[in-house]
């Protein structure tokens, strides 16, 4: 069990690190690193605040056009997905050990986690 969870985390980290690195290299290749950080302005009146398209469509389009920021974004999504996959796989590993109590505990954690990640951002009044 420990070995499998360790490997899931390791590959998630390597994959996300590699994708983010591709993003930085492509940023450098397109002279994206020569500007000044004054462009890092936070705009509270616009969502998203960094004026970058965070929708899935925007991400897909950016990946096809090899946009550096989209690759970095994809790497970050893989990084965020890594602990989630670890919980998913734990459910099955506890099931394989016939440990019903921990299958239940881990499944509840997974449900809470997915609810918090995917549902609460869209509930009015949350995160205000």
């Amino acid at each position, binding site marked *: 069990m420990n070995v499998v969870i*360790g490997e899931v985390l390791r590959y998630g*980290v390597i994959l*996300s690190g590699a994708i983010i690195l591709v993003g930085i290299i492509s940023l450098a290749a397109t002279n994206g690193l020569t500007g000044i950080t004054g462009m890092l302005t936070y705009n509270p009146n616009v969502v998203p605040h960094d004026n970058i398209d*965070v929708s899935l469509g925007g991400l897909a389009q950016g990946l096809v056009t090899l946009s550096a*920021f989209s690759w970095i974004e994809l790497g970050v999504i893989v*990084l965020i997905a890594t602990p989630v996959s670890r919980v998913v796989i734990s459910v099955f590993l506890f099931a394989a050990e016939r440990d019903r*109590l921990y299958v239940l*505990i881990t499944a509840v954690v997974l449900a809470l986690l997915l609810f918090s990640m995917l549902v609460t951002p869209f509930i009015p009044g949350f*995160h*205000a």
Partner: protein
Amino acid sequence: MFIIEFVLLMFFISIFAGVFGSIVGLGGGIVVIPVLTILMGVDIHFAIGASIVAIIGTSSGSASTYVRDKVTNLRVGMFLELASTSGAITGAAIAAYTNSAALETIFGSILLVSLVPMVMKIGEDVPKSPELRGVSKRLGLAGSYTESDGRVVNYNSTRPVEGLAGTAVAGVLSGLLGIGGGAFKVLSMDLAMKLPMKVSTTTSNFMIGVTAAASAGIYFARGDVDPLVVAPVALGILIGAVIGARILLRSRNTTVRKIFAVVLAIAAVEMILSALGVSV
């Protein structure tokens, strides 16, 4: 500042953050946030977005080693995640009705006060193992790990309800502020559940990735996770976490506790300063 300078500086500072974050079980945010806001002049919202990613990176980057070497207690981690994820959702739900400065003052003060029992335990290698009974026994909240010198440490845990409560506080903080969860997780396992220090910090490390992921959706959707800020932080943190994990496995419990006490004091002061309006 030129972007190339920013990227390189943040990369190297994040390696340092990853090393310390993975040893003490708090994630790298405690270093990354003040560096970004004070030194780099980055907006606090982007800094918190980067911190969420830094916490997930520290957690996953080091946990692969900790879990494989069985220092992390998976059952304790999964059990306490019930509280940290519920807490994160609660924090998100009450965010609109709370005064974050007041909360930071309260929680910062709790961290300061918890330095007292932490310092009193300085020098404790392995705690006197409590008898395993009740809920802890039913849940199998015990384990063993091997020190780098080959000594096998067997341990039990106690007071699971208090551990769960402390971890719920950690989750609420993460959901509300995006920061501050790790310290309460380590304290819950160390002071309430009486786990060995290395088990506490590495199990906290294992859990903070999930707690941070629980809050990541909102920061991502809001656009607080800026690619330019996050990229060098994520890469540096991952490298630092791998190095930090190797250091922890060779360190003694007493050393880890000393480093944790220092970092705890810094975290407490940061939180109180933030409440006073100094953006760290």
